[in-house]
């Protein structure tokens, strides 16, 4: 079972690869849209990469609820 730190670190790597954002900027309280400049399609790319990395299913309906990095980390922790 991954810890919150591990999931955050993995997610930061993904956001860096997909959107070119510095890994250090990917913090729990950051909003994907407002702080990290991830648009709706970038979010899909992040989600698909996260599904693979953390062996979790993130349905289309759920993506819109993942406003902050913390939302995504919590969803992954609760569902992987």
């Amino acid at each position, binding site marked *: 079972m991954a810890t919150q730190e591990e999931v955050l670190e993995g997610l930061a790597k993904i956001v860096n690869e997909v959107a070119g954002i510095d890994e250090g900027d990917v913090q729990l309280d950051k909003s994907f849209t407002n702080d990290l400049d991830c*648009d709706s*399609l970038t*979010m*899909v*790319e992040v989600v*698909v990469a996260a599904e693979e990395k953390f062996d979790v299913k993130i349905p*289309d309906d759920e993506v819109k609820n993942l406003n902050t990095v913390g939302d995504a980390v919590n969803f992954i922790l609760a569902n992987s």
Partner: protein
Amino acid sequence: MVQIKSPVGAPHARILGVGGYRPSRVVTNEEICQTIDSSDEWIRTRTGIEQRRWATPDETVGVMSVSAAGKALAAAGVEAEQIGCVVIATVTHLVQTPSLATDVAHQLGAVNAVAFDISAACAGFCTGLALAQDMIRGGSAEYVLVIGVERLSDMTDLHDRSTAFIFGDGAGAAVVGPSQTPGIGPVAWGADGSQYDAIGQTFSWDALKTQPGLGFPMLRMAGQQVFRWASYQMVPVARQAMQRAGVSADELDAFIPHQANNRITDAMLKALKLPAHVPVARDIAKTGNTSAASIPLAMERMLEEGEAPHGGVALLIGFGAGLVYAAQVVVLP
């Protein structure tokens, strides 16, 4: 017991000529931004679209089809009378019946052709190509005219911030005929009706019978759902088309995906690991997403501009509302 004869077709089929029609009116991103809160920069980076063409009232789906088909026939060196079937892929012939194809065949002088339309949205051209190949190999027609045509501007909601900038109009046509060597690989195709609602119109035509105040139905799309499906689930389909044709990625001379959105094309490229030397269709920049017309229009542009070689091998993949998809490897005319 009476034995009936089986039809006898050609050993193989190939695309003999391609032609396109691009409407006269250029619509810039700035013009689109008059009705939505967006910018040229935003649209370019999100979709790759710099401008699109929208048809004038005179540029009907029929006019555009006849023009594109005329060019394809001339390029193929085939006369209209030789055509055994005209198949038109479209979702914007706004007449329930009769089909657009019968009128277009008549206008062209394709007096010996059966004619019908198919509804396979953005997969329409590749679906028509597969039907054409089967008709030619099966002996139902010697030459088949496959046309993809759309006036998506008729169903574009200018105030919908998620779709107003995407759609364009145009027509693309291909003449498919008999060949001694394989020119169209086996098709990889299918449908996923569980995502029936992902792309469609805002309400059905029959709703207008009881609620005439609804106005005119417009296209709508669940962007994230469609992006995920197209970017990731179409990759195995593209691989299957290559496997069935016995062609590897580094043997391709061109990749011509449906021009849905450059971001989808980019995601597919990444997953397919296409070698950098394979040219990729980017006609969307000047044309927008023209649904069934996008692949033949992109093919025509790549051939005209010398980006893809005549006689080269190209991977085509169409995907769209339904959801439906069709892919095949072809020899370029």
